[in-house]
């Protein structure tokens, strides 16, 4: 399996630095949760890792810079789930999941029998086999979300980058999707980097959190160290109570302003 390292990654849009010298290394099988208010640079960081935006600095997989890898090798190492995936309404679920095998198909080639078998297998593991021939437009938001994750898993990449993977889901589907990623991480040693809004969920699943603010990392460490009321108040401008469960779970509870 693979480790991932961000070495002073800086992303600029024009003159504005949206990610400032981001440094972090995620051990093989680790889960880094990137949190922060809107516009903090979470998505830009993930987009830099898959070369969708220009950046300075370096992203290394197992100590080797991604810039030295070929395009298809990069695609085979990092599976990326964007915040708003575009789902062609009349593509079948199987066709969609099969796209995840693209890094392994030669330029003029076509997916092999093995690729097809693997795509079906992934559908089975996500309990969505019955959708194989259904069209994406006919499926519910939760089902679509699972297929997006299925597509990423079909790549069998050692590193999974998730940009707000569960923001469109209800609480049940959120849990299902994250449990699925956690299970795959446990069983296959997947390395995960996820940008997340829900702080409690981020703390529960990730083993390290990086709190970003205006492009810079302002707090880094285990959930209990990062999710402190005063830290969150400073960077999110929010009033919260942080509750520590006996099992170590950190629960962030928003509070109303009191007027008396």
């Amino acid at each position: 399996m693979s480790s991932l390292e961000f070495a002073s990654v800086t992303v600029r849009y024009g003159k504005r630095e949206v990610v400032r010298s981001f440094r972090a290394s995620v051990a093989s099988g680790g889960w880094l949760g990137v949190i922060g208010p809107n516009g903090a640079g979470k998505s830009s960081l993930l987009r830099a890792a898959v070369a969708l935006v220009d950046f300075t600095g370096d992203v290394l997989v197992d100590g080797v810079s991604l810039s030295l890898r070929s395009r298809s090798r990069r695609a085979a190492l990092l599976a990326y789930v964007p915040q708003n995936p575009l789902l062609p309404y009349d593509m079948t679920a199987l066709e969609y999941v099969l796209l995840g095998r693209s890094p392994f198909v030669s330029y003029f080639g076509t997916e092999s029998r093995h690729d097809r078998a693997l795509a079906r297998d992934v559908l089975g593991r996500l309990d969505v086999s019955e959708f194989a021939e259904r069209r994406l437009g006919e499926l519910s938001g939760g089902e679509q979300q699972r297929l997006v994750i299925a597509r990423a898993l079909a790549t069998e990449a050692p590193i999974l980058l998730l940009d707000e993977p569960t923001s469109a889901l209800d609480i049940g589907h959120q849990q299902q999707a994250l449990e699925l990623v956690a299970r795959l991480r446990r069983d296959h040693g997947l390395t995960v980097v996820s940008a997340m809004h829900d702080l409690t969920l981020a703390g529960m699943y990730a083993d390290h959190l990086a709190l970003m603010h205006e492009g810079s990392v302002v707090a880094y460490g285990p959930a209990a160290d990062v999710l402190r009321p005063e830290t969150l108040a400073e960077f999110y401008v929010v009033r919260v109570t942080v509750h520590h469960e006996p099992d170590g779970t950190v629960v962030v509870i928003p509070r109303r302003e009191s007027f008396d």
Partner: protein
Amino acid sequence: MNVEQHGTPRHHGGGGNWRRLAWFLASIAVVVTAVLLGAMIGPAGPPAWRIPLAFLDHLPGVDIDSGVSEAQWSLIWNIRMPRVILAGIVGAMLSVGGAAYQGVFRNPLVDPYLLGAAAGAGLGATLMIAVWGDVGRDWPVAPVPVVSFLFAMATVAVTYMVGASFGGLRSSTTLVLAGVAMVSLTTAIQTFVLQRNSEVVREVYNWILGRVSTATWTDVRLVTPYVVVSCVVLFLHRRHLDMLRVGDDEAATLGMPVARVRLVVVAAATLGTAAVVAVSGLIGFVGLLVPHAVRMVAGSSYRRLLPLTAAFGAAFLILVDIPGRTLTAPAELPIGVVTAFFGAPFFIFLLRTHQVAG
């Protein structure tokens, strides 16, 4: 989740080899039927039912009495058939080109003329007819198609360079806008030239409306190599066109060189489009109508879409050419007018019968 909102087709082709075979046989049957009808129906010549017999008679090793005289056969083979075959080639190319353009720009309203192929060809033809008439007099080939072909390619090349240098190649929007600008500019020049040379307006107008009526086997031989190269390249990129359906970004993270694929597909589609426009004039609507009609009945996967689009595009143009030459015989209706006249209601009918709330 951004689910594209379109009318949802009622039918759709799932996997299955038998279905693929059925579509394959259906496309062959449609094309053969269209070619036969095209050869059989016309203002002069032998009785229509004898013509299939005459075809059989001319197959090597077959000898039957078709009752078609040599002179009649010559009329069919040298006047009607080139026209039918050229209509087929033009229809197939414009439809495949349209589907490919729609794929790389992920825009259903795009046709193969988007980046200026038609406007450039129109300007080239206008200049040749109005201004440079003397220049091409001793060329070995007809000068108007050659010049319009070159202008079509040049216009798209300029559009591409402008779009790429100002917008980068990460987004296709700049390219589309550059196309809009180039089309306006080219059309403006064409209008200016026409206004200064009003005596050729009718000739230029006839060219613009499109025609396969004067087709000869030479025309067919002239365009075939371009169309074959173009279609082979486009067919080889069917998987890439399917990948682009999830967006440039995701296609890139799946390992696809998006900008390069877009350039290759646009270049190939433009080559074929420019070639057919050069011999047949501007036949509108085909590149929009046929790919969408095929999508509605057979689904949007480019692996199925491109071959079916080629077959149905060929059949469509052959069939609409029949009323073009019979309705007002011996005069001709321009085929560009007929495609829109029959195509638009058919398209509306398809929209209506296949639309479900998106």
